[in-house]
């Protein structure tokens, strides 16, 4: 339909609208979105991965780790942003705070489950070989936990891109969401064009992370599809 044609024309013009010389280009907004998302994701990974891996290694705190994942899922991005706005006003810091609040739970849960789920026999064997705790984590557990760990990071990455665009609904400016929230200036063709860009951006991020996951998976594991029946059903869906 012609609306999609108009939308692609908008994209082709890099977001320029006739008669509005000052509008930011789509490329600029896309890069800004990635920047905000990357910062949020980076901070979240830095907090969540060590925490989840450590708990999983010790096989402690499973209740907390798993339920943190559930609670994180239950938080609507808009509500988190809105409440942050009410208490602290809306600026980059508050948006990043919201991103971290939303991204940490799935990463912690999946890091925990990934490391906790490593075959105990392997860990015992490694210990028997004289490896220290940290060596076991880095040389045995982490490589074997790459799949669920990255599943958590990919979920968090999509959350983060999505929430960055939603932040524009709450009044934050500096992402592709600005276009979607501002139909008066950009017209529906612009909104649709930006929506297409957001979808493409999220898929690209997921794609890059999948490639990264493949690169980091130990060669031996790459040949074998993990058997779905092995992982406890409730947690399998988190992957």
């Amino acid at each position, binding site marked *: 339909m012609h609306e999609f044609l108009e939308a692609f024309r908008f994209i082709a013009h890099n977001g320029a609208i006739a008669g509005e010389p000052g509008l930011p280009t789509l490329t600029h907004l896309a890069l800004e979105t990635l920047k905000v998302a990357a910062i949020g994701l980076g901070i979240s990974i830095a907090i969540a991965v060590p925490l989840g891996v450590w708990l999983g290694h010790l096989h402690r705190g499973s209740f907390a780790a798993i339920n943190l994942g559930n609670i994180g899922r239950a938080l609507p991005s808009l509500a988190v942003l809105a409440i942050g706005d009410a208490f602290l006003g809306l600026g980059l810091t508050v948006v990043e705070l919201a991103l971290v609040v939303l991204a940490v739970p799935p990463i912690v849960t999946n890091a925990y489950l990934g490391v906790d789920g490593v075959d105990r026999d392997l860990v015992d064997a490694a210990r028997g070989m004289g490896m220290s705790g940290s060596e076991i984590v880095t040389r045995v557990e982490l490589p074997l936990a790459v799949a669920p760990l990255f599943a958590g990071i990919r979920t968090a990455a999509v959350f983060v891109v999505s929430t960055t665009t939603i932040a524009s609904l709450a009044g934050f400016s500096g992402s592709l969401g*600005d276009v979607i929230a501002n139909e*008066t*200036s950009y017209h529906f063709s612009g909104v649709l064009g930006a929506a297409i860009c957001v979808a493409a951006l999220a898929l690209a991020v997921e794609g890059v992370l999948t490639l990264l996951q493949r690169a980091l998976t130990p060669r031996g594991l790459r040949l074998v599809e993990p058997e779905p029946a092995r992982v406890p059903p409730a947690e399998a869906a988190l992957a």
Partner: protein
Amino acid sequence: MRGTKSGRFRTLVASGSAALAVVAGLTACGSSSSSSTSSSSSSSSSATTGAAAPTASGPGVGKPAVTIGDKNFSEENILGALYAQALQAKGYKVTLKDNVGSSEIIYKALTSGQIDMYPEYTGVLLSAVAGQKKNPSSAGAAAQEAKAFVEKQGLTLLGYTPFYDSNALATLPAYARQHGLARIPDLKPLGKGVKLGGPPEFATRFEGLPGLVQEYGVKPTFVPIAIELSYKALESGQVNVQNVFSTDGQLLSGKFKILEDPKHVFGFQNVAPVVKKSVLAAEGAAFEDTLNRVTSTLTIRAIQQMNAAVSIDKQSATSVAQQFLKANGLG
């Protein structure tokens, strides 16, 4: 063993149905409470009627039912409630659909028949929907061009309001006195020393900073401020001049002064109902007359007071509209 596996499956179905029954019951209970106002409605029926039921007599009795829509901000909710209740007072059967969406979405709803009319701003009609970029020279010209545009699509524009809701620049009276400010061009000699606040899109749109720079040669320092924080920023001194809307309720307090826009950079934004021609014909002359009467009462002070009651005092658009119409013999 407590039960067979298939027994558990049946339990699942039973408890699922029970849960649904509970929700259905809750829904039935909730719907008996007062009809919702400008904020929301259930997903199955998106219709809400104003607090007043249609009267049993009047020119509207026997005429086909009419659906009015409004956009998702409070001033539009007030306008929708005003028109809906005024028509209901004359016996018309009206369904009011709140928060249909933004300009293009609601316009599409109109052309596709989901609604029969909605209140629109003439300038918005021209730029957002018609896609025109040329600035009209007067309120009348804007309305004329808007009318010409919609008539090509089987619609028409009725009379427009005395009030206009355009962008405006506000400042504190003390600041205005200090620098002798009455009109926007008076800001020019102050150069970068003026801190001008507004939402981010103000800095990029023609009906904003670029237009002011081009037409008046002013060159202020721009400070991005979210719309809802406008008046706070002005009062705290974070900005000297702030982008506001000409119908904001806060302007009644006397604490703010609007700088005139002699070249009409901010355009004309009077409101007029956009109606389908077929609906207008079917509903009769009294329909159009009632709408025009309501429109004629909407001066800038009137709408500012209503906006203040809704935004500052948090009253519902429905109740505010009801009070206004009653006071003016229209409700």
